[in-house]
């Protein structure tokens, strides 16, 4: 409950901040729509030249675009702004004040900045998923929707945990302020089903920087392609990665000694 209250406070603060830049928000939404147009056009170009891509039709690819946009929203609305603030606070020592506050420091560091207008992206993403699934004509059962939600959540947790590990590395290597670029770089791989990639690229986006765990795999669950054991394993990976990330964060925090000492 405590953290919910905090999130509410952060949201209020961030809404106030973004209201100061209303025109920018409008421009950003227009640009966002332009990119959506481009993404749909590129799918259209692909499917005017082929019936399926890695066994998936255009409906499934639109749904995948929706799931991809969920992860992308996480990246832009949460990961980038907070990382920027975090890197700054390591350099100038203002991290001291974050640690002194009576709340979980990992929580504070990762949720204090939220790009609020990006929430409309979430709605757009859900619309894309629904339209895509409808177009594909796949028959979706209730358990499939449940496993989709479960694995989408655990995929997001995997990405979140990886982010924690990447920024926690800054405690050891202060100059490592490029910490999330690698995540952003490979994110684009989530637009298409991982099954079309050559093996080495598939290994990278599934195991090393697991973008596909948050994009391709939940959608496979929605289509009923995953067995019970697979669903269980991916869910456990989500939990395990969160536990590992919290431990790395704690260990890193012990290394922190302020900017002047």
């Amino acid at each position, binding site marked *: 409950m405590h953290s919910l209250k905090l999130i509410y406070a952060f949201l209020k603060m961030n809404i106030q901040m973004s209201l100061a830049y209303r025109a*920018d928000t409008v*421009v*950003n939404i227009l*640009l966002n729509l*332009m*990119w959506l147009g*481009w993404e749909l056009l*590129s799918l259209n*170009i*692909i499917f*005017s*030249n*082929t019936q*399926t*891509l*890695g066994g998936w039709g255009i409906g499934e690819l639109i749904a995948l675009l929706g799931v991809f946009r969920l992860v992308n929203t996480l990246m832009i609305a949460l990961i980038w702004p907070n990382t920027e603030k975090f890197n700054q606070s390591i350099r100038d020592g203002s991290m001291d004040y974050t640690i002194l506050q009576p709340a979980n420091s990992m929580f504070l560091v990762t949720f204090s900045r939220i790009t609020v207008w990006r929430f409309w992206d979430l709605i757009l993403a859900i619309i894309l998923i629904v339209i895509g699934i409808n177009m594909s004509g796949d028959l979706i059962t209730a358990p499939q929707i449940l496993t989709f939600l479960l694995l989408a959540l655990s995929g997001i947790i995997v990405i979140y945990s990886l982010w924690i590990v990447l920024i926690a590395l800054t405690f050891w290597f202060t*100059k490592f302020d*490029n910490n999330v*670029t*690698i995540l*952003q*770089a*490979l994110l*684009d*791989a989530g*637009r*298409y089903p991982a099954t*079309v*990639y*050559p093996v*080495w*690229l598939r290994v990278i986006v599934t195991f090393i920087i697991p973008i596909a765990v948050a994009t391709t795999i939940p959608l496979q669950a929605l289509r009923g392609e995953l067995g019970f054991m697979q669903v269980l394993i991916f869910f456990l990976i989500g939990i395990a990665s969160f536990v590992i990330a919290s431990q790395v964060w704690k260990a890193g925090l012990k290394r922190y000694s302020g900017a002047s000492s």
Partner: protein
Amino acid sequence: MFLIFKRLWQVNWAEQWQYRANLLMYLLYWLVSPIIYLAVWTSIATANGDVNGFTANDFITYYMVLLICDQVTSNIVIHTFGYKIQDGSLSGELIRPIHPMLTNALVNNIAFKILTMFGLTPIWIILFFLFQPDFSSVTLTGILLSIPAMILAFLIGYLQSAAITALAFWTTRVYSIHEFYFALILLFSGQFVPLPLMPQVIQDIAQYLPFQLMLYYPIQLILGNLTTPQIIQGYVMTGVWLVISWLIFNWVWRKGVKKYSAVGA
């Protein structure tokens, strides 16, 4: 003049060298989407035999050459110069007797480019062994012809980006404008897919725009897919767009500097 450029080179090279880790990250960031497009299109071509006459090897060679052309013809002036207009640090450069955009920023961009080339070379060789392209259609004449074409295309892109950057004299939203410009490049340059696979109307418009000169045209030159009239036409278009871009940039820059009043003035 030569001495000035030599000194500018030393300063900017040292500056870029300092950020080599950042540079490597930039390179990685920029490499991923062409490789993904390559993977997507080769998988389609392999599944269907070919895509409108494009075989899997055609796609592999196209994107492998694209990696080089894009590196040569793209620029980062919006990121290295835009903030100077906004925070007023341009003032110091304006009182120097040389054009800030056409000397310092340009040399800085070239230093950046050459350093990323060093990073790209080993990665390109690894990709070569991973994808094993068949480059038998490439001729020496094609490569030699493509070099001036790419340098001129870089200048076109640089002048256009510089003109957009100079809009910062009037508005703080230059980054949004540049994002829109970037989308035009994506649409009309052949970055996503070889232009003949784009919808007909986009192909028709792309013919007259400068963006295909940055990627599609030099790639086709290198791959030896163009006839002599097509090569000449490309060079003529390059010349025309270079003049237009130069005129636009000069006009925007002059107006902008007059409008400029630094922070604190």
